[in-house]
């Protein structure tokens, strides 16, 4: 696509703002659908925006034992999530900063966010933060090989690890229903559940300290600090879903800036994200949270799926 620095900057800003504005809506949508599934009315669709607004108005309470790391954690987490949005192709079959790096840089940025938040969580000296950080790093370490193997399968079959190029080539070739794609997509979906802190890996709705992972890690945060964490988590979830949709279902992705193509692409993306959200809701509503030491087995399943996908594609 276009390569002038100004155009790239505009594109990146627009995409990042789009992700930031729409991510809370995804959270609301999932909550609403989950409530419908349980025959409840549930919170309003726009409730997450009100929640963010409320948190931003409250004063942050910080522990006396905490150092600057505690303050820096949510900010780095937020920045890494926002920077990650510029690396995934969303409406267009190209990512704003695709020349900065591809799949590996995206995974690295998410790892940076996790590192920052886990480090900060240990700063207050509260055992809950430590417990959450320890569990988050454990799940992250187990999810990473599965994530990489699934992404490698997609990258190696398209002959590129650059996300923009990858989506362009897949769109050109058309969606294939090669079984290896299905397996890789399934592996990535399991990793999505883990990274987004969803049932069966984690439960975003509980505040029972002993069972939670992500919520335990951010237990000491409040006010604007907490708002940044929540917002970034929502952005991260949307990034993951967009990635999954772009890699395995690139139907309707715009290859030009024509308004018509963009409109079709936007509709297609909304439909795909809606579908993925529905899938998440189905999994969350029909499964119980796994005991923490059963999570490695789930991750092993994802790793196995990734390996099978690779083996089927090339042998």
């Amino acid at each position, binding site marked *: 696509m276009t390569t002038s620095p100004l155009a790239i900057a505009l594109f*990146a800003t627009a995409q990042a703002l789009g992700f930031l504005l729409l991510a809370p809506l995804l959270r609301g949508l999932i909550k609403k659908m989950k409530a419908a599934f349980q025959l409840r009315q549930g919170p309003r669709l726009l409730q997450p925006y009100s929640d963010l607004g409320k948190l*931003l108005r409250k*004063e*942050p*309470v*910080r*522990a*006396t*034992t905490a*150092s*600057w*790391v505690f303050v820096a954690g949510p900010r780095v987490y*937020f*920045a*890494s999530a*926002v*920077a990650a949005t*510029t690396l995934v192709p969303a409406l267009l079959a190209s990512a704003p*900063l695709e*020349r*900065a*790096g*591809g799949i*590996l*840089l995206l*995974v*690295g*940025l998410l*790892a*940076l966010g996790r*590192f920052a938040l*886990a480090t900060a969580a*240990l*700063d207050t*000296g509260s*055992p809950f933060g430590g417990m959450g*950080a*320890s*569990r988050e*790093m*454990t799940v*992250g*370490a*187990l999810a*990473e*090989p599965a994530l*990489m*193997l699934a992404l*490698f399968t997609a990258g190696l079959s398209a002959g590129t*690890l*650059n996300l923009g*190029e990858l989506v362009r080539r897949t769109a050109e070739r058309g969606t294939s229903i090669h079984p290896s794609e299905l397996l890789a997509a399934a592996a990535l979906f399991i990793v999505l559940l883990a990274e987004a802190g969803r049932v069966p890996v984690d439960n975003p709705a509980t505040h029972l300290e002993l069972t939670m992972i992500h919520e335990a890690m951010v237990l*000491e945060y409040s*006010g*604007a600090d907490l708002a*940044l964490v929540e917002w970034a988590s929502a952005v991260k979830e949307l990034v993951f879903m967009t990635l999954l949709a772009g890699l395995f279902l690139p139907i309707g992705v715009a290859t030009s800036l024509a308004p018509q193509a963009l409109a079709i692409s936007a509709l297609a993306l909304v439909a795909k994200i809606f579908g993925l959200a529905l899938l998440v809701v189905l999994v969350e509503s029909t499964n119980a949270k796994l005991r*923490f*030491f059963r999570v490695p087995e789930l991750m092993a399943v994802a790793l196995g799926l*990734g390996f099978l996908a690779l083996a089927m594609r*090339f042998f």
Partner: protein
Amino acid sequence: MSESLFPLGLALHATGVALALVLRRHPAACRSAAFLASLCGSTASFAVAASVLASGRSIRGVLFANAAAGSSVGYTVDPLSAWFLMTLAVLAAPLALYSVGYLAHAIPPGRTAFVGMAWNVLLLSLETVFAADGVLGFLVAWELMSLATAALVTTDHESRPSRRSAFLYLAMSHLGTGCLVAGFFLLAKGAGSLAFADLLAGAAAPGALRGLVFVLFLVGFGVKAGVVPLHVWLPEAHPAAPSNVSALMSGGLINAGLYGLVRVGAGGLGRPDPAWGMGVLLLGSVSAVLGVLYALGENDLKRLLAFSTIENGGIALMAFGAGMMGLAAGRPGTAALGFVAGLYHVLNHAAFKGLLFMGAGGVVASTGTRKIEQLGGLAHRMPRTAALFLLGSAAIAGLPLTNGFASEWLVFQALLRGFFSAERLTRIVLPLGGALLALTSALAAACFVKAFSLTFLARPRSRAAAEAAESPALLLAPQAFLAAACVALGLVPGLVVSVLAGVVAALPGMGPRADLARGLAGVSIGVPAFDQLSPLLLVPAALLALGLAAAISLVAARDRRLTPAWGCGGELTAEAEYTATAFAKPLVMVFRDIYRPTREVSTVETTPYFASEVRYRSEIDAPFERHVYGPATRAVLAAAGRLRVIQAGSLHAYLAYVLVFGVVLLWWLGGLP
């Protein structure tokens, strides 16, 4: 002028030895003189390396010549030597400054001269190892290097563990040196020469013996590189030495092993067999994963860093293995990518491991303990050390915008590009290696969250930690230098890669210079682009996002409130904190088949209802020590016991042995019937 610069560097180190000896009664002067000489020597060595890397032309010369015997020991600084010399200098120069400040408190004043001498001998021999142009000079320098290191490990020779570590190190070193001698003899026998130009130029290896020679070199160099299962000495010896020496061992000494492996692996013995590359890749993966797992289970800050050295050596080996597989398959582009990635990682490892060991040294000097469980809260008392250690942790965990990310990114590329060039069935190991590398780097992130957070954050868990004081500027400045190197090397991968492409192209059997760099800041793999990286492009985005976060929180909340953290209704004390053991526990449980943890819980009861005291002890199995080296040591001792029969202590018997041996020797040499 640059022809005489390399011997000048060696001479400066020799001067350091002499000055340390002369000034041994005046510790302060001795310290300054010895390490200033070391700094100058490293600077000279850096200048030589930089000139070779910039021009691409090797520098040759003679170190000693014996006219009577007609033999001489020479040196050749070719681009590969220059790369390792530069890596060593980048680490050793700041370490020399650090040592001046650090040793003042870390060792008894009477031992200053000893450390100053051994330090300079170690650097002198390391530089000679990297530049030797023949077997003789190489082996003498190699042995000197091992002995100087062993001497430094026993700096604290009153402590039994130190002596044991040094002994273990010597035993393993000699196992390695023995293999090297055998390997070189096999090579030299075929070539009829002892010069590397004849031996390691890719032609000398005799067909049938090639495999044996390679395995001998793999073991010989593998011991120094800390390759699992030859690593057992490393986690003992590295932490036993003073921290400045630990840093030099982890960031510099293991490079001697990696240097040798590149010399023989990258076409030195001719085009490698595919199995060699596969073997190196496998050893590298095992070292990387086991190294980081043991690091994660470790609660001694310096031992943790030592285990992580095994991990990083493993990552470099994975890249070299992928490169060798590419070379074996006749794909010079893939081969070059593998070696570029591995050599990049070697430099990066020297930078961040040096930084982390210096930080750990500052903590040990200030608190007197290396046990993470007894630290905590140091970010308040030692804020600068904490910030620098955090940066080093991020780099070693391979997070974006640091050098660790850039080189691990290249290793991933080497593995994935190798996929296309390898044979059909064997190529599945390459993406699987990629998955293991992903596991390694995620575990390293967990490991260094633990190492940083539990050392520097929350409340101090001991009196020593509560009363710690910030390190002086002389200790902090060298750390800041290496921290800056970690950031800079991560932001200009294009520059590093274009230098390395020249280094790799100069190796025997390598194709033309690989075209990887896109300007100073960018790297691009494959045509059409398989993948590309230019971290500088992401910097404005990351800074803007960080600014947005700061702006949001500034606009949003006017006040901040400070309260004690919630303690479930009680007061939150340091005892309630999450400990290092607890932090690593989930991963220890997940990988329990590897760790085989043993735990004992005993309760001291006073009343039937409440335990007054619970004792908890848990330990991680050391499988190689217990199941490989234990039986081997016992077998050697048993054999030695049997040999005692002929060692009767009788002079007559010994004279008879000499006579018999002399006769047999004459018979064999003279070809008697």
